[in-house]
């Protein structure tokens, strides 16, 4: 094996108005031909910056402060811009996260591939075309000769990522940097793409740098792995050693925070956080009498449904059809069936995990329960009474308070122009849950305390918080309505592993404390394994399997569930 890439003492700095920020600090890295090297870390760890530094594409005003990058024994820091430009593409290629945006939608695949090949070689059009077809076949696109003439939107997500890989390969580079190449893909397709990368690395002895936050992906295909945190290398070594016998504290904590498929844990280990502790005035600021105990008591008061053996929510034969609005269809509306004859029931005080890939109708089901979507057939009973749908559900309907929802993306689910106090106060005011403004303040402060936020947070705006803190605020907003039923739509898929562990812990605690019934929607099987009592699997709008969580994960009956379970990358060896 020969050395392909050597990075020594690399430091990347960004001047900001608060002083210089070091995105990467004194990093050393080596990569051999045909090796797949994983870079893992949470957001802000500097993974992508390393990729950009090697490509020479650090966005202005960032710059490389110290260190050297050597490719095939030659330093590429001494190169001029135009020499670098030739090197990029010819020797180093890149695969991006989202295949939707990394291909030009207005050019056919042929035009994009052939142009790139001709740019970097003297081949004639004919030869370049043949090479492009060969590449597509190599990356696993069948019938490449006809498909090459199509536009990117005619390919599915996974196929498109194959085209992107073919595009990266067409200059025969020595090194390919893959920045989260499978994050935007479903599990089954992710597995295929990872296999393809592994195959290519071996066959063409191309070096891959694989940037990802997913430990499962790392375990699946990398040979060696570097663990990064805040721009500092924590640990580097062969993948199996790092994953099985991590020596660094941070790696240990990170591994412990990854949800496991094989067994259910009571709690996740909290990752050690060396975040600057909030300064004392921040913690000392308190609304008089506001404590988390007050919040728990307050949440348990008020009218509540007597718990009995009946299910909280009973979904009976629900169909949802979306109609295309077509001006000239004359009443013959074409429909797309998002949910087909789905029946489910959620027992009181239990968590139902709803699993499905993108487009399987998970979110549609959640939306029909909260009344944003109107089912075309079927019934949903809540506490024994039929729920009204869409516009038939009046604004005063009591179920609007009793059913609450936590959304997927904490960056868009909170109104950026309103203070946290107003965001959490909105349901209190609207449902008239507080007698006075003073009481409302006290409730808001107590709820914040309950979700482990400083009370002073109520004076700030959402953009002053990190993703995990925002999700806590979103949970507080849902809780404050005193719901009996909570829908969590992928509540952690936008968060880092360590933050995900904290939010899941919080949800578990709250569920146990208040006996909430939860519909927990996720595409991540390991997360569902940790959270749910019951499991249901949706595929293209059809319910394929439901059952107890333990028996499901030990032996799923439906072939689709078996496939899902087999293809989920696992952090184990």
């Amino acid at each position: 094996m020969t050395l392909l890439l050597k990075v020594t003492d690399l430091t990347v700095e960004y001047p900001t108005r608060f002083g210089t920020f070091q995105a990467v600090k004194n990093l050393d890295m080596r990569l051999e031909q045909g090796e797949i090297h994983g870079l893992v870390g949470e957001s802000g760890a500097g993974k992508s910056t390393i990729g950009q530094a090697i490509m020479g594409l650090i966005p202005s005003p960032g710059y490389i402060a110290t260190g050297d990058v050597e490719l095939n024994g030659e330093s590429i820091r001494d190169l001029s811009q135009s020499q670098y430009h030739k090197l990029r593409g010819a020797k180093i290629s890149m695969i991006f996260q989202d295949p939707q945006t990394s291909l030009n939608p207005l050019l056919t695949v042929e035009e994009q591939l052939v142009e790139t090949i001709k740019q970097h070689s003297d081949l004639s059009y004919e030869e370049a075309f043949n090479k492009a077809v060969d590449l597509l076949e190599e990356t696993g696109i069948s019938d490449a000769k006809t498909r090459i003439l199509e536009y990117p939107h005619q390919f599915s997500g996974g196929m498109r990522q194959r085209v992107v890989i073919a595009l990266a390969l067409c200059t025969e580079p020595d090194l390919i940097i893959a920045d989260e190449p499978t994050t935007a893909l479903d599990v089954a397709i992710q597995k295929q793409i990872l296999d393809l990368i592994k195959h290519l690395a071996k066959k063409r002895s191309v070096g891959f740098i694989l940037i990802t936050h997913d430990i499962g992906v790392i375990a699946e295909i990398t040979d060696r792995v570097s663990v990064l945190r805040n721009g500092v290398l924590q640990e580097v070594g062969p993948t199996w050693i790092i994953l099985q016998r991590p020596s660094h504290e941070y790696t240990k904590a990170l591994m412990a925070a990854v949800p496991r498929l094989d067994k259910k844990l009571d709690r996740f280990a909290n990752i050690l956080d060396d975040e600057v502790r909030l300064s004392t005035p921040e913690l000392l600021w308190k609304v008089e009498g506001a404590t988390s105990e007050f919040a728990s008591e307050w949440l348990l008061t008020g009218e509540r449904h007597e718990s009995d053996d009946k299910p909280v929510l009973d979904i009976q034969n629900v169909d949802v059809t979306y109609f295309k609005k077509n001006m000239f269809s004359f009443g013959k509306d074409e429909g797309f069936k998002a949910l087909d004859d789905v029946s489910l029931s959620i027992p009181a005080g239990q968590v139902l995990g709803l699993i499905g890939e993108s487009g399987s109708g998970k979110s549609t089901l959640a939306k029909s329960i909260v009344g944003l979507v109107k089912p075309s057939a079927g019934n949903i009973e809540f506490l024994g009474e039929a729920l009204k749908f869409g516009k038939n559900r009046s604004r005063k309907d009591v179920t609007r308070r009793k059913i609450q929802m936590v959304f997927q993306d904490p960056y868009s689910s909170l109104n950026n122009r309103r203070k946290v106090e107003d965001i959490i106060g909105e349901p209190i005011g609207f449902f008239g849950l507080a007698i006075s403004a003073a009481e409302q303040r006290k409730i808001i402060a107590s709820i914040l305390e309950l979700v482990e936020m400083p009370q002073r947070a109520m004076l700030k705006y959402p953009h002053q918080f990190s993703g995990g803190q925002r999700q806590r605020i979103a949970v507080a907003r849902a809780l404050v309505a005193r719901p009996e039923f909570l829908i969590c739509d992928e509540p952690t898929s936008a968060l880092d592993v360590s933050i995900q562990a904290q939010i899941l812990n919080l949800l578990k605690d709250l569920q146990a404390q208040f006996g909430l019934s939860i519909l927990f929607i996720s595409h991540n099987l390991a997360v569902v394994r940790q959270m749910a009592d019951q499991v249901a699997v949706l595929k293209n709008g059809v319910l394929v399997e439901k059952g107890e969580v333990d028996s499901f994960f030990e032996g799923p009956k439906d072939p689709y569930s078996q496939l899902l379970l087999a293809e989920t990358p696992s952090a184990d060896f």
Partner: protein
Amino acid sequence: MLEAWRRIKIENEFIYLFLNNRVAQLAALVAIVFILGALLAPLIAPSNPYDLSTFDILDSFTPPAWSEGGNPQFIIGTDDQGRDLLSSIMYGMRLSLIIGVLSVAFAAIFGTAIGVAAGYLGGRFDTIVMRIADVQLSLPAILTALLVDGIARGLLPREQHEDLLLVVLSLAIGLSLWVNFARTARASTFVERNKEYVQAAEIIGLHPIRIMLVVILPNILSPLLVIGTVDLAVAILLEATLSFLGVGVPPNQPSLGTLIRIGTEYIFSGEWWIVIFPSFALIILIISINILGDFFRAYLNPRLR
């Protein structure tokens, strides 16, 4: 005190960007000088061009003070009536700015209300209102303004029309500008209404009006503010055009546009100052307002930085 200022300088994004942008500083300085000069005109102008008794026809066509035949009393000369040009410009700019601000305020409130409602409610309301906006857009702004002014002249008795002149003009100009606000507000509302925070408000059953005003509106203000600054310049120009065409303010109360119209009649007979100085004042005011608008856009849209 100094320490506090230093901290503000770093932590407040607006002040930080402003202090690092020489062009924006210059534009702000010019705009402030012009606006103050216009607002304080009755106090600081050398003479009152609206008061017939203060000027003399014998002083007419006096060139600027530094050229031959100039009179130090009239720094940049006089017009065909013998009015001091500097005072006329100050009073004229006052009129232009008042009409500009009034018409933009009218257009912004009307246009934003319609745009947000169309974007949020969608459906038939959206279709109808936006088609009307398209029709409006296909008419040149100046035609709309002329039309409204003409109707007002026809409907109102002459004296009343003169009393209400400012309002009629602002309405006429505002009506030709609201489409910009409506289209932008509608497009931004469309983007925002599908975000989860709006769904969260819908789920608990908030009233649609509250959702539009309290939840959505604050989130779409930034593009509207930018349009506001650009349209302020457009409105001042429109008023100048209307006055230039003779349907704007009356000649005894000259706005910048009236001054330019008077000046063009004499531009070839050697009295260049009557057209040049009001034109420069107008150009510099509009450029500085536009630069400030650009600065706001850069501040409010981090992707442009």
